[in-house]
Each structure stands twice: as structure tokens, then as C-alpha cells.
């Protein structure tokens, strides 16, 4: 079996995410549902996705429609969150910003998860030379603070949505790879893997159907928390003017455009996108913590 076959199979195993055996699933759902904070996190996250999906319908105005007659107005009955320096409606821009900020976060971490799981699984299961090469590469990427590496790559690629997605995927991949590798290392010593070897199951079946399935818990938790991190990185880069460029609305670009007006006392352009970011972060952090507690059999049942 070639390396490429491995890669494809890992990808397949990851995207299908076959459910754990029924009893386990029931335990997980019960544990998750009994954790009120985790459910609240899930609700906030689902609401954010709904806002993103229905942005065109629920926005009161076109997010890019300029109306200089009402520029730099504070919150009012017509413009709930106020308007910016071009007279664009801030609420509509924050709503559309949700769409792009969430999309960047989710797409980049999906790519990072596919790459990271592939790399980590091969590294952990094959060991030896392959492990050394892959993990040394990941060590190099981990040796940079994520935001700094992202800034360095964007210096070359230039600012755009696609480049921000690529950059976040690159800086997040090693985190997933590490988690996957250590989970695979633990799992591969388990008796069921030895049993699978004894009954003659081929290696790709052992790795992708049995081992990785049992590693899904830590990977899912890490991916959830990384989406939160990705959103922070995107907003940070866009706020610095290095990520997504105006006039495209993301939470970061709205903050970028509003920051020159802070000293003039026009606070709404800076405050409201930030509240949207905080809500998304709270939702994802609570969801991640809740998933971790519910998926970990050692903590399950204890107080969360």
C-alpha cells in the first residue's frame, strides 16, 4: 500500500466519521446533554451558523451600500448598531462578517484536520523514519508563535481571504498532527489492535477503521478549540490590515476600519464586532470544553 493510499484512506475515515458503537454514543450524548454550559455553547454556535447562512435575508441593509448622509451615526432606531464612515449599516456588516469569519475558521480547520490527521496517524502508526521526518517538520512549524508565522507567510502571499485560509491551515496542522500521533501511539498498544493483527486484518483497516476511530475524541475536541483560535487569528490579521481586505466585511476588517475613529469617541464601530467575536469564542470554548468532558470516559459522570 502506498503512502498516497494511506492518505486517501485517512481522509475518508475522517470525513465519514462513522459513529462509535451505540452504547458509547448514548453515554456521550447523555453526558453532553447534562452539561448545561456545553449545551449553551452548542446553541450559540448553531445560532452563529444560522446567522451566517441567512445573512442576506436577516440583514436590514446591503452591507456595502453607502449613504453618506448618515455617515458615522451612533446606534439609532434606523441603524441599530450605528453606521461607519461611508454610511454603511454596521448591523448588516457585522451579520455578513459572521459569514466570512466563521467560514474562514471552519474551512481552514477542516483542511488542517485532514492534513494533521493524515500526518499524525502515519507518524504514530508507522514510527521510525517516517515519524522522525514528519514530526521534525511539525516541530519547525510549532517553533513559531502562530500569529507570527501567519504574518510571515502573508508577507509573501499578500492579503486575501484564500491566503488567510491557507495560512491558518498551515499554522494549525501541527497541533492536530501532535494530538493524533499521541492518540494513535496509545491506541496501537491496545489489545484490540493486537487482536486485529492476529486475525490478519490488513494494516489500512486496522489503522483507519479501528485505531483512528478511537482517536476521534481528542481530535474533535482539539479541532473545535482550533476553530475558535482560527477566528481569533483571522480577526487579528484582518485588524492589522494583513488578512482579509476592506470593503469585504469580516469582524476583523470592521474593527480595522473603525480603529481610526476611536480617539474621536466613535466607539460603536469597535465595540459591536468585538461582542460578536466574544459570543462566538464563548460558544466554541464552551462547546470544546463540553465535548472534552463528555468524550473522556474518566471525567464522564464526574462534575463538569
Amino acid at each position, binding site marked *: 500500500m502506498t503512502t498516497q493510499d494511506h492518505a486517501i484512506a485517512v481522509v475518508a475515515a475522517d470525513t465519514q466519521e462513522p459513529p462509535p458503537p451505540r452504547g458509547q454514543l448514548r453515554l456521550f450524548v447523555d453526558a453532553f446533554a447534562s452539561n448545561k454550559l456545553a449545551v449553551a455553547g452548542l446553541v450559540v454556535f448553531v445560532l452563529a451558523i444560522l446567522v451566517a447562512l441567512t445573512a442576506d435575508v436577516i440583514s436590514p441593509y446591503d452591507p456595502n451600500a453607502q449613504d453618506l448622509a448618515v455617515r458615522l451615526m451612533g446606534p439609532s432606531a434606523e441603524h441599530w448598531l450605528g453606521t461607519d464612515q461611508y454610511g454603511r449599516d454596521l448591523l448588516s456588516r457585522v451579520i455578513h462578517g459572521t459569514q466570512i469569519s466563521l467560514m474562514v475558521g471552519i474551512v481552514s480547520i477542516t483542511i488542517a484536520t485532514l492534513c494533521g490527521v493524515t500526518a499524525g496517524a502515519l507518524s504514530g502508526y508507522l514510527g521510525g523514519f517516517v515519524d522522525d521526518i514528519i514530526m521534525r517538520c511539525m516541530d*519547525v512549524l510549532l*517553533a513559531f508563535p502562530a500569529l507570527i508565522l501567519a*504574518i510571515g*507567510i502573508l508577507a509573501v*502571499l499578500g492579503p486575501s481571504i484564500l491566503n488567510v485560509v491557507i495560512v491558518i491551515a498551515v499554522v494549525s496542522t501541527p497541533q492536530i498532527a501532535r494530538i493524533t500521533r499521541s492518540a494513535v501511539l496509545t491506541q496501537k498498544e491496545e489489545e484490540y489492535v493486537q487482536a486485529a493483527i492476529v486475525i490478519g486484518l490488513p494494516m489500512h483497516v486496522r489503522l483507519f477503521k479501528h485505531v483512528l476511530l478511537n482517536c476521534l475524541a481528542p481530535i474533535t475536541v482539539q479541532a473545535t478549540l482550533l476553530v475558535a483560535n482560527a477566528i481569533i487569528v483571522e480577526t487579528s490579521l484582518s485588524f492589522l490590515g494583513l488578512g482579509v481586505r476592506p470593503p469585504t466585511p469580516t469582524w476583523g476588517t470592521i474593527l480595522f476600519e473603525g480603529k481610526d475613529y476611536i*480617539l474621536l469617541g466613535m466607539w460603536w464601530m469597535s465595540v459591536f464586532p468585538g461582542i460578536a467575536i466574544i459570543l462566538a469564542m464563548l460558544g466554541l470554548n464552551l462547546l470544546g470544553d463540553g465535548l472534552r468532558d463528555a468524550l473522556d470516559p474518566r471525567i464522564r459522570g464526574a462534575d463538569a
Partner: protein
Amino acid sequence: MNFWAYLAKRFLHAIPVYIGISIVIFSLIHLIPGDPAQAVLGDAATPEAIQALREQWNLNEPLWEQFLIWFFNVLQGDFGRSLHTNQPVSEIIASRLPVTLTLTVSALVFSLLIALPVGIISAIKRNTLTDHVSRVIALLGISIPNFWLGLVFIIVFGVYLRWLPPGGFHFNKGFVPGVMSLILPAVSLGAFFAAISMRMVRSSMLEVMRKEYIETARAKGLAERWVIRSHAIKNAFIPVITVIGLQTGTLLAGAVLTETIFFMPGIGRELITAMAKRDFPIIQGLILFFATVYVGINILVDLSYAFLNPKIEYS
């Protein structure tokens, strides 16, 4: 293996990683589509200027030779010169570093002053109102981007209340103005760190409090405050130090945003200024500097971890 052998091994392990880092940073200018010199200088550049830069960067040599020249210069502290001011990058870093160090160390001190006592009390008074309140605040702390907190501080304390300066680094005007100008940036930069450390202290304390030796200490009649002081806290701090060490890198990265928002002349803001001017030697030098500090911190963390916990084998 003894401590010194472990130290040597840890450094040896860092060498390939460091070479990898250098290759990544060196490659940056070569990843720009087209001729790097042309791309960096722009369309308006004269052929002579482009040729001069090609020679300055040794672009006419084979790629591996370019790398080796660059790498050995870097090892000697020569990161090249700014494309715009011709100032050596190492001088730029040296002149901006005190600001960044003052900011990050203040943020670190502030966050530990909050995180350690709150985390310990939260664990001891588990599931009381104090615990719930501090956990909610910590959760908010890890959910608020530090640059946004900085913006809100400027609006509230700098613009409306006028209690503290909304930006700048005023140690040249004396100690008191300097400290005043440091409060908002240090608190906004340290907030996330305080929150994450507090959560770590709390969970580590809870873990330790379940251990048998704590029961033993209690059973032998030791007062609860001594159980906590001399047994629990000491042992709980080993994992805490690891996390705190690893997170110090995020403080450095956060300083890029904090310095930009508060107009502080540190290396973080220098990086963003260099990005706007596409001044690649500065960008490369600063990123390499950040990575070097980060790798150094990781080694220190590993060593202190091994040093603090006698049970750890140096392997």
C-alpha cells in the same frame, strides 16, 4: 542520564529545528512570484537598483550558497539591513526590544498576580459562589481577543474617563508617566494569559488535592492551610509552569497587536510597519528573533520541568 547530559541533549535536539526555522524564513523572499529584488523594490525601481539588491542578497549565486551565506551571517547576529533606512536589522531589534520586554514582562507579572491566588482559592472553595464567579470571568478572559480589550480600554479609560494615556510609551517623560502609559497595554495583553493560567492552576490544584499524600497529610493532623501551602501548591505548580512557559510565546505574539493599538515603539509594531513597506530584511530578522526566543523559552520550560520534578527521568 544526569542533568547536564539532558541539557546537552535538549540543545542538540533544538539544532535541526533551528535549521528548519532558518530555511522557512530564508525561503520567504524566494516564495514571492518572480524576481525577489524586482518584487520587493516595485515596478518603479531602476535596473541598477535591482542589480544592486540582487548582489546585496547574493541572488546571482546558487540557492544553497545563498542560504549558507545568509545562515552564517545570522549566526553572527547579522540579519542584513533595512531596504529603506539602510540601518542594520540587529540595531533596529536592539533599539525596540526594551519596549517589548517591558510590556511582556509587565503583562506576565500582572497575569500571574491575578491567576495564582484566584486559581488556588477557586480550587479550595470548589463549587462555591467564589469559584463560579472566578470561572465565569476566566471563561470570558479566554474568549475576549486581547486587541479588542485594548480598544475598549482606550475608549473607556483613555477617551471618556481620561484617567490614563490612550497610547504611547512615556518612560522618557519620567517613571510615573511611563508606568501610567504601561497599565492599559499590560492589562489588556495579560488578560488572556491570566485567564488561561487561572484555569490551569485551578485544575492542577484539584488534581493534586485528590492525591493520597494529601489525605495522609490531613490524617496525620496537619492543619488544612498547611496541607495546602506545603503539599498541594508545591506539587500543583509543576504542570502549571509548563503551560505558563508555553503560553509565554502567545504573549510575544500578542505584543504585536498590543503595540500596534497603543502606538508603542516595540519590535511588534516594527514588524507591522515593515510589512506595510515590504521591508523584507526586517520582516525576516524579526520573525527569526521571535522564533529564537520561543525555542529558547521551550528549552527553559523543559529544563525547569525536569529540575522541579525529581521523578522525571532525563530522557
